[in-house]
């Protein structure tokens, strides 16, 4: 079997690991078999899981590993380029798929980050790379000089080194890498307009799935996760812990040079501005916080239910390119019902939007969905 032929299951590897060590004899056997299926998978399990194993949670908790699904073959193809402080993209190729780590750490962090992001999408959402058709993943490091940013240029990721005074190297945070690649996923799916509320939703999608990439790699449940975006990116000269906080928007930093984190947590503090494409990185705090509230209310691993619901909306074909917060919120409630039926999932979603002041506007609409789903909805997976 090709080393890049990955095993993709609904049971995360750290859970298989746990089952292999502590399940009943039959379960442990099956888990060990699942773990043996792929060298890449095993390598990742050993490298990514740090600290105590997370508590298994629904829906994977009681699922025997032999129920794990075999996904369509997915080949991970990564290439890291070095812009050598110019603006050239993709730059000189310094590490390609399967090659050993190099001495330049930003290159290795970008390479590993692409792998972690690819794995979350494949394992949790059965998505084959960002276009769901195995798109090669490319990133360029050392872009320009003292460059305080990372971006997705429509085809690849680009990372600056930071200025060293306020910002460190932008490859430092795994969630930043997941964030940028998720811009690619959004581009290939809902393609949300990058301005105003749809732009803030575009940004929020990147923060949500960026955070999930990190949580999945660390094996952290919603309760253990830090819900920070860009943790480690600010130098120790800056008063702040990260660039954004999904748990407490507006509290990530408060510094003489950088100013104060401007993110609102609720619609009461929505910021009207023409800068930043109408505040796409500012008002994203509101849907970010809604996701955090829904995920923590449900507990367990955030990528399993809350993440699944958000992913269903992003990729479901009903989200308009110019969607506002309310229409997105209504779709999450409908998606929760469609996948899980009437239960704690839809309630958690509705409560979350209510707390941030976004009307789901869909009590009528969702009543229709509810009636319809009574006969046609798929069996809930729990």
């Amino acid at each position, binding site marked *: 079997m090709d080393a890049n032929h990955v095993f993709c299951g609904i049971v995360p590897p750290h859970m298989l690991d746990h089952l292999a060590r502590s399940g009943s004899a039959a379960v442990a056997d099956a888990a060990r078999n699942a773990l043996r299926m792929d060298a890449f998978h095993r390598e990742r399990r050993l490298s990514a899981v740090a600290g105590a194993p997370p508590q298994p949670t629904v829906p994977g908790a009681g699922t025997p590993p032999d129920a794990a699904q075999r996904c369509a073959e997915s080949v991970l193809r990564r290439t890291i380029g070095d812009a050598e402080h110019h603006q050239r993209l993709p730059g000189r190729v310094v590490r390609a798929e399967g090659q050993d780590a190099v001495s330049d750490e930003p290159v290795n962090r970008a390479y590993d980050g692409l792998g972690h992001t690819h794995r979350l999408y494949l394992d949790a959402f059965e998505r084959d790379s960002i276009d769901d058709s195995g798109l090669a993943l490319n990133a360029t490091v050392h872009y320009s000089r003292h460059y305080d940013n990372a971006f997705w240029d429509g085809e690849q990721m680009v990372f600056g080194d930071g200025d060293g005074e306020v910002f460190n190297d932008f490859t430092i945070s795994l969630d930043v890498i997941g964030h940028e690649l998720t811009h690619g996923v959004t581009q290939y799916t809902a393609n949300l307009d990058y301005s105003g509320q749809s732009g803030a939703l575009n940004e929020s999608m990147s923060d949500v799935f960026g955070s999930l990439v990190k949580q999945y790699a660390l094996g952290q449940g919603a309760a253990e996760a830090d819900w920070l975006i*860009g943790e480690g990116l600010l130098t120790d000269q800056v008063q702040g812990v990260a660039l954004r906080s999904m748990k407490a928007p507006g509290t990530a930093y408060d510094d003489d040079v950088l100013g104060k984190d401007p993110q609102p947590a609720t619609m009461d503090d929505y910021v009207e501005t023409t800068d930043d494409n109408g505040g796409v990185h500012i008002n994203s705090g509101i849907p970010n916080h809604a996701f955090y509230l829904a995920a923590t209310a449900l507990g367990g691993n955030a990528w399993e239910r809350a993440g699944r619901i958000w992913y269903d909306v992003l990729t479901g074909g009903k989200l308009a390119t110019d969607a506002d917060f309310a229409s997105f919120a209504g779709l999450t409630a409908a998606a929760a019902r469609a996948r899980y039926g009437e239960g704690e999932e839809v309630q958690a979603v509705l409560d979350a939007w209510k707390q941030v002041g976004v009307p789901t506007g869909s009590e009528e609409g969702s009543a229709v969905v509810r009636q319809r789903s009574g006969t046609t909805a798929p069996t809930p997976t729990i």
Partner: protein
Amino acid sequence: MHIQVKRTGGFVGATRRAEVDTSGRSDAEAWHSLAREALASGKGSERAGVPDGFHYEVTVDGHTVHFADPHLTDAQRSLVSKVLKEGA
């Protein structure tokens, strides 16, 4: 020559402003030359950027142009970096 740069957007979403007045500066001619070169290829209106890309509004003696990453020429990159680094 009065050169102002306003940078918005980016992953952080914070706005940065800086300006340089070249009158009386010993390196004034170098600034003028760089500014002229940068503006020669600038677009007069907002150019669509990319997700998380910076947008730059550059005003030279009342004349404003907009740039967006990653579509900057070397002269434009050099000018905005220099103003943001050395300007007040």
